[in-house]
């Protein structure tokens, strides 16, 4: 078993979680609240977590609900799930 793993950030199918570096303090509460375990903590302290398994996201939004700063993290549902609505 290797100690190194490789993350290919160029071939993402979806990008479910977006962090804003200006607000995220790297507290990793989202990492600890995610039941699917899609994140890993950033190896650099106080930096935003890494979404290592984006396609496994269930889009429940618990990472957002647990975040102490509402501007630091954003959930992006898959584009194909954009719903249509119109003004009455």
């Amino acid at each position, binding site marked *: 078993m290797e100690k190194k793993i*490789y993350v290919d950030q160029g071939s993402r199918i979806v990008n479910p979680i977006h962090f804003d570096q200006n607000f995220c303090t790297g507290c990793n509460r989202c990492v600890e609240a995610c*039941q699917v375990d899609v994140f890993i903590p950033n190896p650099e302290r106080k930096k935003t977590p890494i979404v290592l398994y984006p396609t496994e996201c269930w889009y429940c939004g618990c990472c957002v*609900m647990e975040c102490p700063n509402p501007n630091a993290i954003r959930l992006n549902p898959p584009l194909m*799930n954009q719903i249509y609505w119109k003004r*009455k």
Partner: protein
Amino acid sequence: MRELEWAYPLRWDEVKEVSTDVLILGGGIAGCWAAIAAAKKGLKTILVEKGATIRSGAGGSGCDHWESAATNPCSRVTPEELTMAMIKDHNGYNNGISHYIECREGYDRLLDLERMGGKIRDTENEFVGAEFRDEKTQFLFSYDYENRFTLRVWGTTFKPALYKECKRLGVEIYDRVMATSLITDVNKQQTKVLGATGVNGRTGQFFVFKSKATILCMARPTRIWLFSLGLPGISEFRPLQCMGDGHAMAWKAGVEFTMMEKSLRGQWSGERSYPPYGTGNTHNTWYACSMVDADGKEIPWIDRDGNILKSVSQRYRPSPGQKFFLKGGGESEFPLYEYQGPDTLPIENLLQNGYKLPFYADLPSMPLHERNVIWNVMVAQEGKSRIPIFQRYKEAGFNPEKDLLQSYGEGWTSASFLPRERQLFGIPGGIVNDWNLKTNLEGLYAAGDQLFASDCNGHAAATGYYAGRHAADYAIQTSQSNLNDQQVEFERRRVKSLTNKSEGIGWKEFNLAITRIMQNYCGEIKSRELLNIGLKLLENLETIEVPKLYVRNPHELIRSLEVINILINAKLIINSCLVRKASSKHLHFIRSDYPEMDPIEWHKFITVKLENNKNNKVKVGALPIDYYSSLKENYEIYNEDYIKKRII
């Protein structure tokens, strides 16, 4: 490409052994309640959860309504009436014991939740004067406003409150640990469960949990027919990792199952679907929202006799001469007239009469309180809807006072699936239980989605707590046994064997192969020939491909162990389908070689279990459709202590 070192220490070769009185496998709603009940009895309690207990499970992110709270002070139905209605609505194929527990104790759990910090009342008085509000208790009701047994709740507050309570009571929580097998003692006449093994999905560390009593609280099987290679996380209604580990390990240990032949054409979620509760519809979270067609023409609501309802208020009332109704439209797919609630005209009827697609949910036309309670309470509090729907739609400009939200599926679904794309939904099969919620194995109990005919949050909570206190009573009068080292070592090697390869096939390819087999050979129409080929192909996968599964880190180890469990669950399902030699409407079960629908001699629960761990022989049994016998009397015999305490 960015090179990263694995974020956690690797402990592949470490084994940690721990002992406890009560061991709970699965930290969702049922598991947390089981842990709370056991810990309250003063016993050492361990909770093993594959994800993160604070938000894990199907109900971790929220819950908008609490069903079957028949003992709340406003309810006009008794637990007996309500349970019997649920049983009759499914033509008997329902769990009388677990649903009676839900009807009898669900409301107690809701009050417990409030004491723990969960919100269950309109304490801000936002809905004063609404016809679904009780002014004295501040409870808000949904569905049947006259009979008042389903409460609207603020369920996003529940799971963190349960987690906090577990910690306060000293429950030892092992997050990120997947339970992999039950440890049993098969030397005696009856198999006894002595604990379980587990592996950590971040470190690879192996665990041995020794227990006096064990409770299975994991999820129902998923990813059997449905799997998305591109977006595995939304393959099903439930989270990716809630896929039925408990069913697989229980089956291997000889636990008895029933109704596993039942599966429904997909309704919810999956790659085909829009987010549940995120499209215009009339059911469940959105009951009873008005709908309009493409030209803005209002879609009529009818009562069970087909009479058009003139007001919104009537959608929340029983029909003339009806005592009460179950949900809207009925609880089962084939609602019984006696309990059938209001619904919109069927879609075929609407299209024939000139209504034009697409249809839209018309929140703006709803009375103020109804609109606000659907959008600001139900959608905001339901599971996985607060952030992706309530918050994101608002940010994107959706205004519930002004906008029409499109509907995509028929009625309350958010997609249209093919007949072969199936799910375990609508009270599916599971473990057979007695009045202690004990399984057929000594020392082993089950709750929530592990039980046959399970459904919602209230059911998981009530059965979890009930199993917790009965397992604790058993643990108090039993002693710890020594484990069979060989069995533990065998399991450790099985888990480890996945980690020592440098190439092979990945878990996603494996999962997709299972779903292809199940769609082809265990789809809507079943027969002995098809099922036998399916079983043979699954067995080939097991013997030829499982040894090739390849993992690169502990996270992938968990995913690979999961797909092996999915394969076991698929086999359990095919075996169950083979032994019911009759078709059944309410089990959604069609056998082309036994086309007669519901012959009376097959109106019973067919049970299956593996005879022992050594061979693969399936032992078939049967239970009478009313095996639970008298609900009230039995409940009172088994729960004298609880009833006494409740009165005090």
